[in-house]
């Protein structure tokens, strides 16, 4: 699609636009949804589209073009020009990256076997059957396969191509109405895909969660399963964007260089992570993706930036464009040195939370929020697991990060409905977490 990109760029320059970014996608995505041990629907999406960003005298506009004929492209460009002519400028716009750049192949991001995979339903059956064999009665979930081609051309000398694949599954298993477990597996190459692992975890937790009793409230040491902690960290992904901080959606606003988490917490965004579900060779303005440490031993080091926001703050881009809104690629919590068993043995009386959902903030700038444990929840007492239910984590995100007292040594990649940007995290132990419950 580079020819189309070039055509768009040429026409945009003829119309007098300054910065121009043309990002074209060709995607093939398959989905198999299942519930009650059967497939509810199977889908396929084939899409070709162009995301277009243009600038003229600090006036900016963006659009997505799906009808890719030359006539339509010209019509769209003229519409953009007409629309921004009398529009107020974005005074804090400072341009896009100067290319060209060199790009390296990132291992484990493309697998021909996924492109050629004819029928993924066998994987669904493996996941369902594994969960059933662990004691589940009902199994639900979703499987995806992905094949994406990305073509980037900018007015600043960038021409870049990336091709990627992926396969992932999310499995939720039920024993009764109140007993459930969840497991996921996301991989960019087929040999790292393990639907059995996801099904087994879902089934095991559901089985362990049998006959739960009403949980307690108060402050507890909590072990967050990677699935649960990834959910909390996914909100960090949003809050780390400099754009979100300016707009009033981040407790990190004004905290650069300050302590925002426990010494044990080192959080990175890694755009070029092998096998990362969010991995790409370059960001939306063509800067090669890289590893950026955002929190180092508890100290907040940098927001995620694009070129314009970086210039505004007198620093360098972190290769996280989003031309308007920077965003993370793969958020990674550095592993600690606790084995899973050691982590659990640290807890005399605490709670093991295997999954959460519906995280909502009372106030983004202070970080006050609550979230609901879903699937198996266990009171952990001297190594014993007692299933509980109906509790809520009600606390503050910075406080949670500051109270991290131990981190597991094995990271897991989490990417599912609740965690739309991938998060890689181990098990995490947090002290004094606020737990509430309905009292009527």
């Amino acid at each position, binding site marked *: 699609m580079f020819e189309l990109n070039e055509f768009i760029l040429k026409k945009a320059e003829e119309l007098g636009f300054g910065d121009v970014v043309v990002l074209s996608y060709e995607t093939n995505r398959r989905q198999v949804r299942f*519930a*009650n041990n059967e497939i509810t629907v199977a889908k396929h999406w*084939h899409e070709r589209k162009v995301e277009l960003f243009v600038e003229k005298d600090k006036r900016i506009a963006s659009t997505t073009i799906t009808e890719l004929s030359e006539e339509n492209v010209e019509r769209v460009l003229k519409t953009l020009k007409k629309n921004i002519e009398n529009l*107020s400028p974005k005074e804090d716009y400072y341009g896009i990256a100067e290319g060209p750049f060199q790009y390296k192949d990132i291992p484990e991001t493309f697998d021909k076997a996924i492109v050629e995979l004819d029928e993924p339903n066998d994987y669904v059956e493996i996941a369902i059957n594994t969960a059933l064999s662990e004691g589940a009665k009902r199994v639900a979930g979703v499987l995806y396969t992905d094949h994406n081609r990305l073509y980037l051309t900018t007015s600043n000398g960038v021409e870049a191509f990336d091709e990627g694949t992926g396969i992932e599954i999310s499995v939720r298993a039920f024993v009764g109405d109140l007993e459930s477990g969840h497991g996921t597996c996301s991989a960019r190459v087929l040999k790292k895909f393990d639907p059995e692992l996801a099904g087994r975890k879902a089934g095991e937790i559901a089985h362990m969660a049998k006959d739960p009793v009403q949980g307690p409230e108060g402050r507890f040491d909590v072990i967050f399963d990677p699935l649960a902690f990834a959910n909390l960290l996914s909100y960090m992904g949003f809050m780390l964007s400099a754009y979100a901080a300016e707009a009033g959606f981040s407790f990190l606003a004004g905290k650069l260089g300050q302590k925002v988490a426990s010494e044990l917490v080192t959080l990175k965004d890694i755009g070029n992570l092998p096998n990362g579900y969010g991995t790409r060779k370059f960001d939306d303005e063509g800067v090669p993706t890289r590893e950026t440490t955002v929190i180092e031993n508890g100290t907040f080091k940098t927001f995620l930036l694009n070129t314009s926001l970086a210039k505004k703050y007198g620093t360098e881009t972190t290769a996280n464009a989003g031309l308007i809104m920077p965003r993370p690629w793969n958020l990674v919590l550095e592993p600690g040195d606790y084995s899973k068993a050691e982590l659990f043995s640290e807890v005399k009386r605490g709670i093991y939370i295997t999954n959460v959902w519906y995280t*909502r903030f009372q106030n983004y700038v202070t970080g006050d929020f609550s979230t609901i444990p879903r699937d198996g929840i266990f009171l952990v007492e001297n190594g014993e697991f007692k299933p509980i239910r109906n509790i809520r984590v009600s606390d503050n995100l910075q406080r949670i990060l500051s109270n991290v007292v131990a981190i597991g040594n094995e990271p897991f990649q989490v990417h599912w409905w609740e965690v739309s940007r991938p998060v890689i995290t181990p098990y995490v132990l947090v002290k004094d977490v606020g737990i509430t419950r309905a009292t009527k």
Partner: protein
Amino acid sequence: MELLEFAVEKALELGASYAEARYEEKSGTHLAMKNGSPEGIGIEADRGIGIRVLANGGMGFASTNVLTKESVAEAVKRAVKLAKAASQVRNEPIEFSDEDFHRVSYKVKMKKDFRDISPEEKLEILRKIEEEVKATGANVPMRYLMYSDQLWKKVFVNSEGAYVKSKIPRVSVVYNLVVFENGQMEQAPFVQRAFSGGFELIEKDEPWNWAVKDVKALKRLITEGKKPPEGRVDLVISPEVAGIAVHESVGHPYESDRIFGREAAQAGESFVKPDMLGERIGSEVVTVIDDPTIPNSWGFYLYDDEGVKARPRYLIRNGIITEFLTNREYARKLGQRSNASARAINYNREPIVRMANTYLAPGDYSFEELIEDIKLGVYMVSFNEWNIDDRRYQQRYIGREAYLIENGEIKYPVRRPILEITTRALWSSVDAVGKEVEFYPGTCGKGEPGQGVPVWMGGAHARLRDIPLRRP
């Protein structure tokens, strides 16, 4: 639309027992302003066709945005193939309820067509919010404002004779405001005003007045706010709070796909079971209706995305569970007819069971009558943090603007009163409902891939007796 008819015929030829094709076109603009600075304009022009089929009892869906006969034929082929393969991992075939279908065309008129209005003029709406917020004298260091409009055009055909063409314009303003006074911070995030119709509706609604009301309330909360009472008190909830409560704890658990477990891995299941129809869930004064047909509502439609004619749905009548939200698949399982709750957010999404405009129906109390005999209580006007478990039973709402009620009078603002309660307790505690109904817009999330559909939530004021309130 010849391509749609072609798609349906082709699917039947390939062995589908049922086929539907939906063309959708969405065009519009969005503008944002961050702390007084315009962020540029986004222009949307998206269109495509989605095809859904049943074959051998399995369901397949495929979509394309390349609108040629070849591309549509390819999508149809894929949908039928996927349905057949899926049928092999099924315990029983999917079947649809019998329905009456129509050939109809409808549209929502715009008095002021937003396509004729310049981006700069649209930006003026956001500027006006900026100016009015500043004029309050409150310190509001973070201000994020968004305007958007969108014209939705749709054509739906199916193999059973349906042909539904619609044109619905939608306009919306969203704001996030952070008030910082005396070293303290309060926030009104993602507040939305939104309608189906023309630009005149947003102008008439005057979103700047809503923003000013929020800013003044938050400033007063900081300067005069006290701790809310703790323990068992009476609680009066506003139409806005009643709206989120009916949406979360009535609308969602009554979605039949959730009741039958289809959403189990994503949006969750339901505490409601099919045999709970006719069971009491709330007091006599609680009636909850979901009505897609309310003119100019954010959740407006007259025919759903399976071509079925819409009507008001009485989810709870006088405290009794009376109806679930259904599409054709689950209406069949329930031995009923569909009540037209199937919605898809775009051509590339399957229609699934959704709400539209859900509200607590009015009672016969004036606001004064609701509070006059409350000795000690709280009036919760708006909320921030809220959530509910995936069976829709354990929920929590935290007040943003809220006041103490003492001896029948509204007194000073109280900070963050927390209502954490079960669904049954919530609706059983209501002993009186106000006369006036108001609606508030929202985006209801469900499905995978996610489908955020526009909905209104609302109702009348309601009084809840003997409620355990918490403090942060």
